[in-house]
């Protein structure tokens, strides 16, 4: 491969990698909206929390793999607590109430992270196994980023299996279309909501844990990711996982090729794209309009 082609190819892989991370975060947002009709503004906060957990577990055990497993689970558990004790009492009080509550939780996560871990950057090294670059046909690419893509694909597959092959997945899909009916069939819907919320947060947690070695862990990590994930969900439409996947990848590619060709406009391109989409499809590409 000549260097120019290699550059274009690696831009494509970058786009894919970022798109995958974005999808992990956005899919959780989308899942929660689709099923519970709650727009969780604290989602990115949990993403950050998981990165901190990863840092902490590595500090305790020195084992990145263990941290990668445990941090998202711990984060998901925090999410379940939030659903059970804060969101459930509020069910049915409307869009605005949910928004305020999740803003409140987001603020608290930001503050608590600082109380516990302080304000300094927490650097986290990649596991030795994944340091270095892969050389392939004139293309150099870091192992870890390939690992992130792989991890996201694995999570995606697990989610797909869970959603399409297991009973609980079927229940979730059924509940998205009609949760009263599922309830009447003898399935504990409030418990299911808590579970789904936990899984959504877990997805954000996986993204946070995976990205921690690439980024440094710092308070405010939530800001950028939250914005990007929001844009994905808004453009894709609420509750559409398929849409979230496609738009995430699209944005990833748009970002890396945008930087390549229209560097000055690249940061704006996502927003302009979103604005245009929302003018013509106010409910997103794959969303359905809700009845007022």
């Amino acid at each position: 491969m000549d260097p120019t082609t290699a550059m274009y190819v690696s831009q494509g892989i970058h786009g894919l990698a970022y798109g995958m991370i974005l999808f992990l975060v956005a899919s959780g947002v989308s899942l929660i909206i689709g099923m519970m009709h709650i727009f969780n503004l604290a989602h990115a906060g949990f993403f950050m929390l998981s990165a901190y957990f990863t840092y902490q577990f590595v500090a305790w055990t020195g084992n990145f793999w263990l941290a990668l497993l445990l941090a998202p689970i711990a984060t998901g558990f925090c999410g379940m607590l939030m659903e059970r004790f804060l969101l459930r009492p509020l069910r049915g009080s409307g869009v605005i109430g949910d928004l305020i509550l999740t803003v409140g939780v987001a603020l608290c996560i930001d503050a608590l992270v600082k109380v516990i871990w302080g304000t300094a950057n927490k650097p986290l090294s990649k596991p030795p196994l994944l340091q270095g670059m892969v050389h392939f046909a004139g293309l150099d690419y870091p192992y870890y980023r390939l690992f992130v893509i792989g991890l996201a694909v694995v999570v995606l597959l697990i989610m797909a299996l869970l959603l399409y092959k297991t009973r609980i997945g079927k229940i979730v899909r059924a509940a998205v279309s009609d949760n009263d009916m599922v309830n009447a069939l003898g399935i504990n819907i409030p418990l299911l909501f808590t579970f789904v919320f936990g899984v959504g947060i877990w997805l954000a947690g996986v993204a946070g844990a995976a990205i921690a070695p690439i980024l440094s862990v710092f308070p405010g990590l939530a800001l950028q990711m939250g914005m990007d994930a929001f844009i994905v969900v808004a453009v894709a439409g609420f509750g559409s996982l398929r849409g979230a996947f496609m738009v995430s990848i699209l944005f990833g590619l748009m970002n890396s090729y945008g930087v390549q060709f229209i560097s000055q406009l690249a940061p704006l391109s996502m927003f302009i794209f979103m604005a245009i989409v929302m003018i013509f499809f106010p409910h997103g590409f794959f969303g359905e309009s809700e009845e007022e």
Partner: protein
Amino acid sequence: MKTGKGILMFFYVFSFFFLLTAMSPIQATAAVKAKFDVNKMADMSGFDPNNFPNPTGDTIKIAIVATFSGPAAAVGEGFWLYATWAAYDINKRGGLMVDGKKKLIQLFKADTMSRPDQAKKICEQMVLQEGVKFLWGADGSHIVKIMNQTANKYKVIAVNMISLSEDLQDAKNFSPYAFMSWWQTSQVGRSFAYYFGQRKKEKKFYIMCQDYVFGHEMAENFKKGLKEYYPEAQIVGEDFHKLFATDYAPYITKIKASGAEVIYTGDWDPDATNLLKQSRAMGLKLPFAHIYMGNPATLASLGVEATTGLLIGSPYSNGNPAFKTPEQIKYHKTMMDAYKRFKPPYNKMDYMLGWDPLAMEFSWLLSVIERAGSVDAEKIIKTWEGDTYEYVNGHVKTMRACDHNTIQETYILEYVPPDQQRQSFNIPPYHWSDKSALYGPAFRVPAEKVLPWMDPNLERCKGKKPSDIN
């Protein structure tokens, strides 16, 4: 949700970059009016920034204006450390003679939350309710504008510590009550340009800055500097990424393909850390010419090889070898003794190298107060305009009278592996850090090559040259 809160998220890291501690005194060309004398220093063994014995009553009241909450809270933390360090020393010595009476220094935390409205509120609270006479801060040039405005309105002194924007002292925004004692973006750009022009090793430059006013200013000024001092240089690429970007890979791929030899960046943390980390992970080994990329924790996590060759610009450190005089050694030792005792949040690596650059800034202010013998703003202004002050490392600063900018020489330092750090750290253990490359040879940029910009429209400066002190 808010992407750019941080404009100010300022230099979160702060300390590391400028932390080039004690070094040998230069031969001061002109007699300085005052200097920091290590031998007069009080016993610092009781110093603890978490428990600063803040005096009350009839005191000299100084507000530390900074972000103490939110993502950029580390800024306030650092400011507090620098100020309490210097104030603790003076208070231990019995305070300063002001208006015929010895008075202690009382410090106030003024949290701006990085918001202009909050900054206005807190500055007014400080001045009107607490009776503060000095505002020392702040992070973010729009916050500094608010601080300066407040000072101007209520006739107190404001000292801009770390905002490098030049329009703060231009004809539109100049206030006689506001002083600027650090350095400016044009000085940063010209320092590097002068350095590269002299070194003539690299010719192809890539500019990578954050996409907001400061980043663009940094880039512009570097380009201007190159035109002036290194016309043969080539800019092979110029990119501005958004603040707090998460993925730099596309930029890094682009830089790799551009054939650049040096990357010039104005990024501060967390962007600076992420940019460096991701560059190295992706096999981009080029040196960065930077001012805020020196977070010791990040450097340590990257290791020696990945950090060797980085170039840091600073207005503080001077030549090698450092720690030449017993005074400097004593000062450094005092600081490190204190650091060992620190509790969270001050026990982090960011302060491992010391904090004298900004503590010295505070000491200059205290020295001006002492010599004015008053907290009266007019007297302070009179004393400070045209003042010269020598820092503990021999660095000399001069306050230009007409626009309150600081004339000084600047330095470019190259990072070298631990075994070569002895040239700048010539006391045991003979290196700054054994985990990463750090300060090696320092290149001195003479003050006349990097004079601060002077607004030709500023009435007070009409008919003066930038080198005129008075």
